[in-house]
């Protein structure tokens, strides 16, 4: 690997060309580093500030606390409610786990149906899938709320779980269909010749091959659910059922004006699961996005 990717011919290049190439590489790295700093420094500052005393948070550029303190974490964890933040993390987990599993199962079934079978109206149904990708949630939100209210599901996790069991995120179905189209069918056909039915083929042949894509889907759903705010805001009213996103908003509203490090410390904790998951499984995110583009 060379720094200078601008193809330098194998024959000795004139000195001024080498210099120009070096200069352009230098400019490129400088630019990338400056932009990188702008991208990451706010997060670094956030982590540093969460260990600062309240008097130190504003008015300085540096992120290293002069008198490091855990006060923000200790007080923030307690919250102004009868519950600790642990409770809110547990609630978030309770929302995420079924949602991710339901999403993976339902989207895999539907993608398999689209990618491997012929049936009447197939083109039309696939067109509806693309249309729902572009359909703003704003339009369906109010009637959905009325539907869940009539079912008596307000202030439960059901409105957050159930749509995902019916392949509610068109984007994931679309992504899996794209993956499936790229997978050759000969293994499946061999299994069918050996007498396996379509469901056995799905479980034993297709799912193992789709696994990387399924992991991508689950990871994205994890992130989106972790960050989801409007859903819980509309459907949940008891503090004891709040996920982290709502609890954080609550702590902004109730914390007296000078207890900034509490809020910053809880913000760091709120971001931690997403950051850990992302760094452990980076390639699934990048590949998933490249496969079909993604919101965010």
């Amino acid at each position, binding site marked *: *690997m*060379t*720094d200078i*990717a*601008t193809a330098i011919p194998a024959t000795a290049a004139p000195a001024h060309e080498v210099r120009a190439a070096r200069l352009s590489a230098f400019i*490129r790295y400088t630019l*990338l580093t400056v*932009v*990188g700093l*702008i*991208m*990451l420094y706010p*997060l670094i500052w956030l982590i540093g500030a969460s260990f600062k005393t309240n008097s130190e948070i*504003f008015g*300085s*550029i540096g992120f290293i606390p002069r008198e490091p303190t855990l006060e923000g974490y200790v007080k923030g964890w307690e919250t102004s409610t009868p519950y600790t933040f642990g409770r809110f993390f547990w609630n978030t987990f309770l929302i995420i786990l079924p949602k991710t599993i339901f999403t993976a199962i*339902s989207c895999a*079934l539907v993608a398999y149906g689209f990618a491997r*079978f*012929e049936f009447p109206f197939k083109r039309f*149904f696939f067109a509806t899938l693309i249309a729902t990708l*572009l*359909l*703003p949630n*704003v*339009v*369906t*939100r*109010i*009637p*959905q*709320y*009325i*539907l869940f209210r009539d079912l008596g599901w307000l202030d439960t996790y059901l409105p957050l779980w159930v749509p995902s*069991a*019916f*392949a*509610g995120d068109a984007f994931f*179905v679309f992504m899996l269909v794209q993956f499936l189209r790229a997978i050759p069918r000969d293994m499946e056909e061999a299994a069918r010749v050996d007498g396996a039915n*379509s469901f056995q083929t799905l479980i034993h042949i297709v799912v193992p091959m789709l696994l990387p894509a399924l992991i991508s889907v689950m990871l994205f759903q994890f992130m989106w659910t972790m*960050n989801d*705010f*409007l859903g819980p805001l*509309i459907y949940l009213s008891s503090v004891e059922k709040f996920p982290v*996103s709502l609890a*954080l908003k609550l702590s*902004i509203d109730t914390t007296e004006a000078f207890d900034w490090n509490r809020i910053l410390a*809880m*913000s760091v904790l709120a*971001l931690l699961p*997403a*950051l850990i998951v*992302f760094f452990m499984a*980076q390639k699934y*995110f990048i590949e998933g996005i*490249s496969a079909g*583009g*993604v*919101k*965010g």
Partner: protein
Amino acid sequence: MESPRIGLAYLAPYLIGLLVFTAIPFLGSLYLSFTDYNLIQSPVWSGMDNFRELMNDRTFMRSLRVTLLYVFITVPLKLAFALFIAVILNYRLRAIGFFRTAYYVPSILGGSIAIAVLWRYIFADAGLVNMVLTGIGLEPVNWFGDPVNALFTISLLRTWQFGSAMVIFLAALQAVDKSLYEAAAIDGANKWHSFVHITLPLITPVIFFNLIMQMVQAFQEFNGPYIITGGGPLKSTYLLPLYIYDEAFKNFNMGYASAIAWVLFLIIMVLTVVAFWSSKKWVYYAGDKRS
């Protein structure tokens, strides 16, 4: 293969979901937009009243204006930035993986409330951004007190999250056939020429895809203004989704809220249709016969 029923059976979850959670609610909100409905009494048909009221609703008009302004600032800014960075990253540099990751992290944390909270802090009067500005000899800016600046902080938050558009651009750039560049270089084209006449036309489908996706998303922005500015100052960041939320879930004017939602939807749809229609003129698909 087998009877067509099998394929439909696999589609069943999707078809049920489509009907119950998308199609029926979609028509339901259209119906509701012509009614008065407060969640307690049954909806009362009121014809065009809601829409007539919207025309004279100053809050709505202001909200519509700032929403359009927000979208027209944010989407081009975000896409331009994403493409610019993708082009720079497209060279075989050392540590490309590191940079790509660094730029993508903000997007992954994207919608998180914690990030919106962070934004409130770094754009505060004595916050990080103003400290940097004074550090390099500029005047500090009143970010949240001034209507234009407040909207701009939210645009900046979403521009900072250009990562997914960038990753898509990068994938498209890496798929461009290198021999085209070599041929152009032999013909004496410089880098800028190559970019304008080879790269740009070849990635127009991805530009188009990103444009549509980012636009639909920007029109629905809620978390940023809700947390960072609360819609203020002077309703300058009171985007339509905030107005819909307040009308529906605070004032329980479900009919009126549905009418606003439909206006927003129609605007998104018109712009999407215009984009699709114009794409015939500027989006290049391989296999097109171009003279």
